[in-house]
């Protein structure tokens, strides 16, 4: 068994880019739990970190949009955004090309994947790395789920992907950590930025924390769009992690709507 850590966290660009404008007590409590997540991750001595993200047209566009893509590069770079805008300096991030190739090959037994040997990380991966691997030493295997440009992969296929990832991790000798990163309800980069449906978030999180497969897969995109905004499509990252940790419950370490960050800020860790 080589999955040694699994967790979920938010990645909104405001978390670093508009940090000074947030309620300091909420922001600092959120940051403290991200730090706690880093310590828990480090305690498991992972050799690689799989980040299941939902990027925002940094690499993947409607000219050739993969539903699922896994990185297989020697190294990645990021952030693609303006450094000052995001509050994160541009840098190289080490990849794990040989491990990536083994994981991809194994997962392809169960799910169709695209792979990429070139990938510029946007805030969707850089914000999590900023908090979890601040020295950028841990090799990363990025995963992208298209949550931006419909048609979108069905939730059941995200679960199947997570399951395939788990199986592939268990066949690898390396100690592997997996984090998923997405928003719950939010309306990012629109006039409704800052709107958060806390009740919807808490109901979703309760299902996620209990790993209730049927209830997680029952959300329709129409309902999600109506109640949780177009940003709500990113629940695919949570569903993939729940598939990867099927049968395990998770603990919620932090949840609070922080409007200037445009998302209900979340830190959750799975009890493997």
């Amino acid at each position, binding site marked *: 068994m080589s999955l040694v850590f699994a967790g979920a966290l938010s990645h909104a660009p405001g978390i670093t880019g508009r940090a000074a404008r947030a309620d300091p007590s909420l922001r600092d409590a959120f940051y403290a739990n991200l730090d706690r997540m880093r310590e828990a991750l480090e305690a498991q001595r992972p050799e690689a970190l799989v980040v299941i993200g939902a990027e925002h047209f940094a690499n993947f566009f*409607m000219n050739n949009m993969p539903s699922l893509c896994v990185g297989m590069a020697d190294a990645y770079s990021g952030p693609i955004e303006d450094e000052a805008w995001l509050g994160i300096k541009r840098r190289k991030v080490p990849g794990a090309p040989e491990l990536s190739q083994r994981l991809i090959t194994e997962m392809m037994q169960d799910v169709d994947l695209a792979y990429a040997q070139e990938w510029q990380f946007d805030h969707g991966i850089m914000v999590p790395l900023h908090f979890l691997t601040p020295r950028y030493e841990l090799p990363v295997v990025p995963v992208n789920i298209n949550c931006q440009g419909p048609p979108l992969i069905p939730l059941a296929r995200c679960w199947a992907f997570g399951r395939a990832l788990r199986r592939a991790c268990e066949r690898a000798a390396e100690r592997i950590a997996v984090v998923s990163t997405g928003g719950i309800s939010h309306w990012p980069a*629109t*006039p409704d930025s800052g709107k958060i449906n806390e009740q919807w978030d808490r109901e979703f999180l309760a299902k996620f924390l209990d790993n209730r497969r049927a209830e997680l897969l029952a959300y329709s995109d129409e309902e999600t769009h109506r109640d949780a905004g177009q940003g709500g499509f990113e629940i695919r990252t949570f569903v993939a992690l729940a598939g990867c940790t099927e049968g395990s419950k998770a603990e919620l370490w932090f949840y609070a709507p922080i409007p200037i960050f445009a998302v209900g800020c979340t830190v959750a860790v799975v009890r493997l």
Partner: protein
Amino acid sequence: MSLYYVQKLLFQLNRDPRVRKRYEENLDSLLEEYELTAEERAAIRSPDIGLLYVMGVNGQLLMHYAALRGFEWDAYIEAMRAGERRYGPVRTGLYVRAGMSRP
């Protein structure tokens, strides 16, 4: 409908420094490479962030274009609201409902 090409231009502008350089040095020749309507070309050129939003440009592309053109965060949000007041609800894409939900 050439919204696809408006978004493709912004996608390439956001990710490729060489496209940004061409944008700065010779916008006309860059715009010629995309199938755009006169309204779209004018909105990109102005820039009319509110109109681009109402046309249906995805915010994940638009917010970076706004930042590139010097819009601070609050000014970007306000430009989209002003666009709705001036041009009406969002015409197509994911934000149609969001546009209709506000008075």
